[in-house]
């Protein structure tokens, strides 16, 4: 292994600019003559718009234009769309209400965008927005997802009767019901998967710029997938065809899913720039605006059941879930509680019968879509809470119950679509148990009790499906796009390399790990490799970064393009060294001729390819540049075992996580330092869900958690240091053998925390987030017993 090749703990190439203040995020970019866009937003959760009077605002100092939904309709600016079609069990297509870029006729959540003011300065735009007079007829709000389907609940969209977007099912209901009838034991849990705000530290931002001379638009935006943004804004919003629209996602300060989606503000900045005569229009969300308008995550209400026989063998699993979609269907919202959720309900276990029903509902709250893990954390939460609860009810060790039901042979076809290709679930559980000294837990629990602390331990044996491909498979499930990835390798005449990738890096470290792959393959140092991404004018097309897909899909595309580079370079080298191509070998960055001392470094061959003096250009084209598109043959299936140990202060309800071990199987690992960082961050987000975070609306639909004063982000002192290790089964569906690591921590963590907490308290459930108050309430039985 070289210092910069696959497997090296190489320091990140991108870090220098970030640690010196030279990162270039969207808000750091200022275009000449730039104006500011400010959005007037609805103060009501649900209201009809009777009239909007913008006359005073238009005359206010510094104002260039004021635009409303009526203007958008007049200019044929389409709405934003949901790109994944789900059909209900009766075969009917999902009921997607319109999502105009500025409200038309009705507002559907607090923060819904009503008008935009474009002015020279931010202060002018805000002052002018105060002068817009909107006459609302306030309607009752529908906030509770469970109540939303009841007769008489306020209707969010006319098209969706009883606020129901779809009633979807997966699995064999009759067979599963039969399995439950024959069960020796049934475990039932009612679980709420709390609504979360993704909270990338960089708030969303956009600059739209229209060039009247070229009739061409440029959008700078905080996006995880600029090409998909361009596709949607072209094909569905209809603002401009793709060749007339350039989308640039420069440095992006975290995404976690929330920057996958195409948001109204991006469209409005582009359109407003044209309406303001070509003045670039910049909008930067403040944090309050982010809380109101960023797509949220999770928000499931589920009844889950697990059927077991007398020996603890699982016979079946049933789940009925109500998934809150919010007021509009965001870009991939419909896929999250369906194909990214119910398909993982088999967990790591042999479960012969599974049946899931999911009702997706509209409410007068901000939209809900993919957030780190997207459906898979919800599935893991159901499966792993059921396993731990079942073990307690059956008086079995939870580790033993899991071990008895692990899938041990591969490939394994589950009853819910997925075909797991490789894994060793016993190995990761065994290692995790050794690391945390599972056998010594009772001693530690007694020691904790002596100092007034309730100590608990909880497992989470998660599995996830990453890559989200092959394209034909996701297409058959309703995806409106293919989920392949593209790459182009440009070798310069001096032998340095540029990689153009459709993946987008917003913290993942692609500039380092992708360069490590090239370094490994071509035998050149990683600092001679540049990674180009995030600009539709530079990279032809790409599907972006989400679903832990950039390694398994994006890097495989690069690898395929490198195969082509190597093949062509071999031809060139053979001619230059006057040898037969079959005698040329490429190793450690050099082409050599078998049985001779003839040798050329990679850079020399690159130069020869461009000079083109020594090979017939009628047979071999000059230059050295190749591209590839890669569509995987299967999802990848990272899995692992996380164990959380925590202590609860019985007097205050404060929970402290005292130990955490994670043993993950990500297949081959390109850079362990970066992979560990991904796991740390994922666990922290999962712990945040379990212990501190929740988006809360009041009955009228007002957001109560609209700032960091009220929405409790995990701080450094809420978390322990984590202890990580890995097991490895190579992924058979890509040549690099990698599975993906970006979401694992967030998928595993909530169940581990809540299993530990319920074990500490001796209760069946505590609502997430398990704030001191929720924990204290859950301890009422202990206080009563003491009295």
């Amino acid at each position, binding site marked *: 292994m070289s210092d910069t090749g696959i497997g090296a703990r190489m320091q*990140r190439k991108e870090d220098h600019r970030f*640690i*010196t*203040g030279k990162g270039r995020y969207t808000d750091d970019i200022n275009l000449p003559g730039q104006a500011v866009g400010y959005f007037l937003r609805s103060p009501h959760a649900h209201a009809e718009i009777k009239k909007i009077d913008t006359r005073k605002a238009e005359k206010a100092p510094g104002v260039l234009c004021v635009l409303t939904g009526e203007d958008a309709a007049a200019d044929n600016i389409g709405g934003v769309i949901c790109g994944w079609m789900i059909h209900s069990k009766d075969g009917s297509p999902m009921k997607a209400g319109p999502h105009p870029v500025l409200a038309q006729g009705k507002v559907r959540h607090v923060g819904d965008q009503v008008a935009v003011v474009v002015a020279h300065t931010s202060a002018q735009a805000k002052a002018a927005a105060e002068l817009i007079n909107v006459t609302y007829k306030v309607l009752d709000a529908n906030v509770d997802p469970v109540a939303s389907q009841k007769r008489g609940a306020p209707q969010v969209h006319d098209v969706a009767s009883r606020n129901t977007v779809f009633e979807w099912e997966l699995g064999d209901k009759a067979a599963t019901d039969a399995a439950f009838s024959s069960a020796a034991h049934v475990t039932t849990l009612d679980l709420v998967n709390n609504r979360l705000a993704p909270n990338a530290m960089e708030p969303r931002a956009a600059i739209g710029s229209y060039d009247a001379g070229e009739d061409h638009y440029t959008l700078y935006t905080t996006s995880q997938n600029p090409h998909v943004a361009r596709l949607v804004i072209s094909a569905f919003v209809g603002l401009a065809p793709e060749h007339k629209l350039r989308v640039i996602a420069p440095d992006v300060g975290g995404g976690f899913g929330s920057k996958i989606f195409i948001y109204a503000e991006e469209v409005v900045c582009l359109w407003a720039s044209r309406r303001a005569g070509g003045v670039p229009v910049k909008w930067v969300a403040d*944090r309050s605006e982010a809380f109101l308008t960023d797509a949220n995550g999770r928000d499931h209400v589920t009844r889950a059941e697990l059927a077991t026989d007398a020996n603890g063998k699982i016979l079946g699993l049933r789940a009925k879930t109500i998934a809150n979609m919010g007021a509009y269907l965001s870009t991939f919202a419909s896929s999250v509680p369906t194909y990214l959720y119910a398909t993982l309900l088999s967990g790591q276990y042999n479960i012969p019968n599974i049946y899931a029903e999911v009702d997706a509902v509209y409410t007068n709250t901000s939209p809900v879509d993919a957030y780190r893990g997207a459906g898979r954390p919800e599935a893991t939460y159901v499966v792993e809470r059921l396993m731990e609860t079942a073990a307690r009810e059956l008086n079995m060790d939870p580790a033993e119950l899991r071990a008895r039901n692990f899938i041990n042979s591969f490939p394994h076809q589950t009853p819910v679509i997925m075909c797991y290709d490789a894994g060793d679930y016993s190995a990761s559980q065994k290692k995790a148990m050794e690391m945390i000294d599972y056998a010594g837990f009772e001693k530690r629990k007694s020691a904790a009790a002596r100092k007034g602390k309730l100590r608990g331990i909880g497992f989470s044996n998660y599995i996830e499906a990453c890559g989200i491909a092959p394209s034909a498979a996701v297409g058959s499930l309703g995806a409106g796009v293919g989920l392949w990835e593209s790459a182009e390798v440009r070798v310069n005449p001096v032998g340095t390399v540029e990689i153009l990738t459709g993946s987008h890096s917003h913290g*993942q470290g692609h500039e380092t790990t992708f360069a490590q792959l090239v370094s490994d393959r071509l035998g050149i140092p990683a600092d001679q490799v540049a990674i180009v991404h995030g600009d539709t004018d530079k990279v032809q097309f790409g599907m972006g970064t989400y679903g832990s897909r950039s390694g398994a899909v994006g890097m495989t595309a690069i690898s395929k393009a490198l195969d082509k580079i190597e093949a062509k370079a071999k031809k060139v080298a053979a001619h230059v060294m006057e040898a037969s191509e079959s005698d040329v070998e490429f190793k450690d960055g050099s082409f050599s001729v078998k049985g001779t001392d003839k040798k050329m470094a990679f850079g020399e061959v690159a130069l020869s390819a461009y000079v083109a003096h020594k090979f017939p250009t009628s047979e071999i084209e000059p230059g050295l540049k190749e591209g590839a598109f890669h569509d995987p043959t299967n999802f990848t299936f990272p899995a692992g075992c996380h164990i959380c140990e925590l202590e609860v202060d019985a007097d205050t309800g404060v929970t402290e996580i005292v130990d955490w071990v994670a043993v993950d199987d990500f297949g081959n690992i390109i850079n362990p330092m970066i992979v560990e960082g991904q796991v*740390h961050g994922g*666990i922290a987000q999962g712990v945040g869900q379990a212990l501190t975070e929740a988006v809360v609306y009041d009955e009228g639909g007002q957001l109560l958690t609209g700032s960091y004063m009220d929405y409790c982000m995990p701080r450094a*002192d809420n978390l322990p240091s984590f202890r990580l290790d890995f097991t490895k089964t190579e992924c058979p569906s890509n040549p690099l053998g990698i599975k993906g690591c970006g979401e694992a921590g967030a998928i595993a963590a909530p169940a581990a925390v809540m299993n530990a907490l319920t074990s500490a308290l001796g209760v069946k459930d505590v609502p997430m987030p398990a704030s001191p108050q929720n924990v204290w309430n859950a301890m009422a039985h202990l206080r009563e017993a003491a009295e």
Partner: protein
Amino acid sequence: MPAISMTVNGEKVCGEVEGRTLLVEFIRNNLGKTGTHVGCDTSQCGACVVHVDGKAIKSCTALAVACDGASVDTIEGLAQNGKLHPMQEAFREHHGLQCGFCTPGMIMAGIDIVKRKGKKLKEETIREELEGNICRCTGYHNIVKAIQAGAAKM
């Protein structure tokens, strides 16, 4: 509009600002130093931490006019003659950053912790002192390690 002057990263700067202009707006918009970030509007996240007269403050919560005559240090001024500050070096070495957005504030806060608490920092001290800085990417694990290592080398 009031005219103000201050020393930023050792250089004399001046400008006209509105009374309501925040220090972070002056630094980012007037001076074009965009390494100092704004991540919230309630003085919680710490992405905007700079040093004013040697002490860490949140530049989103100070008026530019209130810093008239002050000496301000931002992330851009830490490296000297092309040599990184030990705290910057430690963040890179220990992978204390991912998306980089909170990083300038974390590094400025980290240096301030060392000034106040010394070079030998316990993990729990660092965790407690970071209460005013939010990171969403790293789970703080490597930030804590980086500050500990950077402190030892300062």
